[in-house]
């Protein structure tokens, strides 16, 4: 599916630019996009390096496993293919907690650590997403946000009477999203099992 989305954006984008007579924007947009991508990756070096160090300490201290054990009832339901108390579970929980608290800087590195742990379990086809990874990403993109910090900041900036009044509606919408994410993941997982 990602192939279709990618190709669709490229082809449709270039055709629209051509039809509107401003084909010159395509080259610039392509290079700008590449520039942003490389800058994003480079800026990740610092936070990933830092959090990998901290997480290694947490792992060595036994804290990641302790956390994994704590949430076992939930995770064994969501991730049946991952062994109990696996460090991946600890990292997943930390990533989701950081997301919930709106700590974007910490959430990304912890998510990447969780992916590395899940990849260790994905020996059969290392270039293909495992079921646990799909579940994790569904949870992650549909994750509950309790404090949407950035948007509250913007509301303050433009003089809102009650900048945080959208917190309740945000939690509601995100809960709905998360429920559907988990359901869709379950349904698609069994569909894909039958096909491949």
């Amino acid at each position, binding site marked *: 599916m990602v192939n279709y989305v990618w190709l669709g*954006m490229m082809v449709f984008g270039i055709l629209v630019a051509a039809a509107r007579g401003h084909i010159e924007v395509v080259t610039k947009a392509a290079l700008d996009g590449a520039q942003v991508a490389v800058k994003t990756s480079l800026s990740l070096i610092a936070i990933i390096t830092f959090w990998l160090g901290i997480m290694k300490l947490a792992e060595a201290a036994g804290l990641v496993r302790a956390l994994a054990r704590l949430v076992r009832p939930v995770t064994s339901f969501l991730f049946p293919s991952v062994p109990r108390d696996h460090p991946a579970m600890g990292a997943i929980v930390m990533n989701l907690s950081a997301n919930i*608290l709106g700590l974007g800087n910490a959430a990304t590195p912890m998510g990447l650590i969780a992916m590395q742990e899940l990849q260790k379990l994905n020996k059969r086809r290392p270039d293909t997403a495992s079921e646990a990874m799909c579940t994790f990403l569904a949870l992650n993109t549909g994750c509950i946000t309790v404090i949407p910090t950035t948007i509250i900041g913007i509301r303050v900036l433009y003089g809102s009477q009650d900048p945080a009044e959208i917190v309740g*509606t945000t939690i509601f919408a995100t809960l709905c999203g998360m429920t559907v994410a988990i359901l869709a993941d379950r349904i698609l997982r069994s569909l894909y099992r039958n096909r491949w």
Partner: protein
Amino acid sequence: MYEVINQISRWAIPVMLLVIPLVAFIKKVPVFETFVEGAEAGFATAIKTIPFLTAMLVAVSIFRASGAMELLASWLAPVLSVLGIPADILPHAVMRPLSGGAALGIATEIIKTHGPDSFIGRLVSTMQGSSDTTFYILTLYFGSVGIRKYRYAVASGLAADFTTLIASIFICKVMF
């Protein structure tokens, strides 16, 4: 309630940075060496995401700069208005899963034009706060471990995004 959560998110990281090294030290872990050992992989992990992010962001950038995104939004408008989705927020809805920066820009523009306390201002705030940049996350997370075949992850991510959109509109209509 909001204040409590706000305080938690302020304190969460400093407390972690205090507790983790202390517990490790008590358990006789060589703290400095272990930190360095873990941090070593940081550079490689970040660099590994470059080709994946480049592929995705180049396509998003062309899609957006060419005007194709707006065109798609205008085509979708009549379909979505049946569902009660206001046309003004369509560019945001289309852009949200693709580009976090672009979606935030659109949300800011809407809040600036209509005011943060207007219906549409509250709606776009809810939409911005409740959803994530699905394609960026998929590309980044899968890219960091070299996964090229995403299987059904795109489908379930988009299903969640669409649900969040509908749920945002619904709850804002009820509440505001």
